[in-house]
């Protein structure tokens, strides 16, 4: 049906304002409208035998470009027409137009309008944008001890530069869109032509084009809007602040989405195992990296299940604790008047409080809060008989384990899904834990990322993709791109050459 729906034609001759009934149709109106804002500059600039009218938004324009490149060059020439003016300015993309819509739009994106007379309708538009962004810094969220130390910044231009100079091939395509009817945010979709599945690219582009939103601040807005299941707790697009990671997934055949103003790139399609793979894994020996990945996987399972199991065992199934261990548990819990569930919820909430407080406070204070709060509250609550030592250890370990997840958003998810598990463990014991685990599995099975299964390569089981999931095989083994991505060119490099073994002493 969408094919037949006509897109509303944009009348470029006028400038449409937010209030749909108002529009600006003449230069005079435009100037009056712009002058209502005090940061709009509009003045006459005398040159030898005539004068130029300059108009621009002051905060958007780089004064140096105006003075050094534009006015300097204009002064010396004898100029008779806008054409002469255009030719004399050594800046690319200078436009001559009398289209009010275009003029207004360009003024708002850092162009300077130059005319000969104040009442002229035709003008020259010169691009002189002021860009104030912070310089490239070390990645903080996805820090790695070895490997590149660059991270994305808030400017899409810089970010594109970071990616393109690592991938200097003409096949790297960038599709730009403007999203948000107030923010007019630039969104770029990057992919490698000839590798990336065209269907995936079309899906992303279509979903971005369909976004109806006013103020698009960050790439995480896009995650929430274009995810296959926006209500799911699990992030279905991977975000990264590392240009090296973005480039490596582009080479794998994935799509990267950049948003102006956001230091995080989005990667799609993603699967569950990627959220537990730190990019540093690729800088380490495959055996070491695999060992760490396995530890991370187990810590996630541990983090989700251990407190619920404690609650289930102590509420219903104390028979299955061996005698010797029972002694320890009894001594530890003797003075605790609360049932296991309250004990566990109390401690879990304390940990969440500490984490939240630590995250909201300035770094220096945050660290102190974490240490002081952890030690003081922990010890005090044990001494006061509110919780048992054993549970304190368990909860602390579970919290620690949840922080091993390399992706921040996934860490949050894992900490949160522990609470329904706790509740079910309290209601139905072990059966409750397994039932909630089944709900989790069913949910993960149902999730998709750009229509590709989220649980891949676990389900649908694809042994070939297992080579870089829980265990990372050596580079020479990963000669094919992941099947999940359905790439157009599956071979990464020649397997024969990479794995050729020389004979002894050859």
């Amino acid at each position, binding site marked *: 049906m969408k094919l037949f729906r006509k897109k509303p034609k944009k009348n470029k001759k006028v400038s449409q304002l937010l209030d749909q009934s108002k529009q600006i149709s003449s230069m005079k109106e435009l100037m009056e409208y712009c002058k209502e804002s005090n940061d709009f500059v509009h003045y006459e600039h005398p040159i030898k035998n005539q004068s130029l009218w300059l108009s621009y938004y002051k905060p958007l324009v780089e004064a140096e470009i105006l003075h050094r490149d534009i006015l300097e060059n204009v002064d010396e020439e004898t100029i008779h027409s806008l054409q002469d003016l255009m030719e004399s300015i050594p800046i690319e993309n200078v436009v001559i137009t009398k289209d009010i819509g275009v003029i207004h739009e360009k003024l708002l994106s850092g162009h300077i309008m130059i005319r000969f007379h104040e009442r002229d309708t035709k003008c020259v538009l010169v691009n002189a944008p002021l860009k104030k962004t912070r310089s490239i810094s070390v990645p903080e969220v996805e820090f790695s001890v070895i490997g590149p130390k660059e991270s994305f910044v808030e400017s899409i231009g810089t970010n594109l530069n970071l990616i393109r100079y690592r991938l200097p091939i003409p096949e790297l395509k960038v599709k730009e869109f403007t999203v948000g009817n107030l923010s007019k945010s630039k969104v770029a979709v990057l992919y490698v032509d000839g590798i990336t599945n065209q269907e995936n690219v079309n899906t992303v582009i279509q979903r971005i084009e369909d976004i109806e939103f006013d103020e698009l601040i960050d790439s995480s807005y896009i995650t929430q809007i274009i995810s296959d299941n926006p209500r799911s707790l699990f992030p279905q697009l991977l975000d990264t602040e590392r240009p090296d990671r973005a480039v490596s997934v582009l080479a794998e055949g994935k799509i990267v989405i950049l948003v102006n103003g956001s230091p995080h790139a989005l990667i799609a399609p993603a699967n569950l195992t990627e959220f537990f793979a730190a990019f540093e894994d690729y800088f380490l020996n495959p055996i070491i990296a695999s060992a760490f990945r396995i530890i991370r996987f187990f810590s996630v399972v541990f983090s989700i299940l251990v407190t619920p199991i404690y609650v289930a065992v102590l509420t*219903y199934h104390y028979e*299955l604790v*061996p005698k010797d261990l029972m002694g320890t548990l009894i001594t530890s819990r003797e003075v605790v008047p609360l049932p296991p569930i309250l004990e566990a919820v109390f401690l879990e909430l304390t940990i969440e409080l500490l984490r939240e407080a630590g995250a909201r406070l300035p770094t220096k204070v945050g660290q102190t809060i974490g240490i002081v709060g952890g030690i003081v509250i922990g010890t005090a609550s044990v001494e006061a008989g509110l919780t048992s030592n054993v549970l304190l250890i368990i909860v602390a370990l579970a919290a620690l384990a949840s922080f091993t997840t390399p992706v921040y958003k996934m860490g949050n998810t894992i900490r949160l899904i522990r609470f329904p598990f706790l509740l079910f463990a309290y209601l*139905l*014991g*072990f059966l409750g834990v397994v039932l909630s685990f*089944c709900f989790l599995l*069913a949910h993960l*099975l149902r999730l998709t990322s750009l229509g590709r299964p989220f649980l891949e390569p676990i389900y*649908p089981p694809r042994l070939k993709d297992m080579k870089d999931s829980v265990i990372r095989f050596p580079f020479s083994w990963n000669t094919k791109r992941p099947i999940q991505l359905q790439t157009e060119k599956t071979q990464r490099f020649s397997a024969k050459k990479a794995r050729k073994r020389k004979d002894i002493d050859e």
Partner: protein
Amino acid sequence: MGKHVPDYFKISPFLTFFLITAVQVGVGILSFQSIIVEPAGYDAWISIIIASIGVHILIFMMYKILNQEEHKDIFDIQTMLFGKWIGKSLGVITCVYFLLMSFVALRLYIEIIQVWMFPQISLLVVGTVFLLLVLYIINGGFKVIAGICFLGVVIPLYLILTLIFPLEFAYYDNLKPVLNHSVIELLLSAQKMTLSYLGFSTLFVYYPFLKEPKKTQKFAHFGVAFTTFLYVSTAIVSFLFYDEEQIKTVIWPTLGIWKIIEMPFVERFEYIGISSWTLVILPNITLTLWASSRGMKRMFNVNQRKTLIVYAIIIITVMLTVRGFDNIDKISELVTRFGFYYVFVYIPVLCIIHFIFQKVRESK
């Protein structure tokens, strides 16, 4: 009707293995030993293999029929062979059979939970939670169901390790002498054993959902072989562990084995075992319930989601009205007996009729 299943919803051929195994292994494996020991004594493990051969032949027949009719399931085939009225009545019977199967699987599992873990547990609560889970899975489509079947086989595989523990107390002479029972006794045992293999007839329904369906036959056979392996190993370990007279009095021999497992941090393993069994039961309920609702959709063009809600309400109501272990046993007995005739009589007959139909169609 007559619409082909789009490729997007189809699953890889080798997943047939998991679909077959997942639906065959269920509550039965916890209790089958005492039933098959009745006629054939400790030679009953041979009967398991005999029954398995029977199932292999049936699967072969099912593929004989299905491979001829591409993109068709049992409901289309029945209407094609017997006409609209008889075909649809047979279809409804099939649907009811699948529905009852899922009910029995769920109810027997809850029975075990009641006996072994929570005597006071509310049927309404557990039943509702289970059915919510099942509906959530089925609403995800057949791919998700196949996923649960896959995980329902792979994750509980660790339970095989629990068969090592009782070997400490094994009495290997239990199995000797081999073959001291008559063929009739072995066959009787095998007949009782077939009940534990039921459920594979869902293949009739999900066949159109398989990619390159003709290639899936070997995986289906592997699936049955794997089920047989699980049953035989469980049976042999329990035969070594229990005395022959004793095992006849035990209702759930496998659970009895779990009771003796001791690890430094865990005793009374049956709590963990029974809870993990949820993952084994889930594919049973899900696949049969899906098959039943799918049948309704194919024949009467009703909304599958709505059918499922109706089914869930029926299951809960029946569960709450039929009380007492004897009554549940009667229903389960009825379903398994019907299942036996369904697979061992109806499928061969269907195969023959289809063969004749095929010949007639060709000669025209």
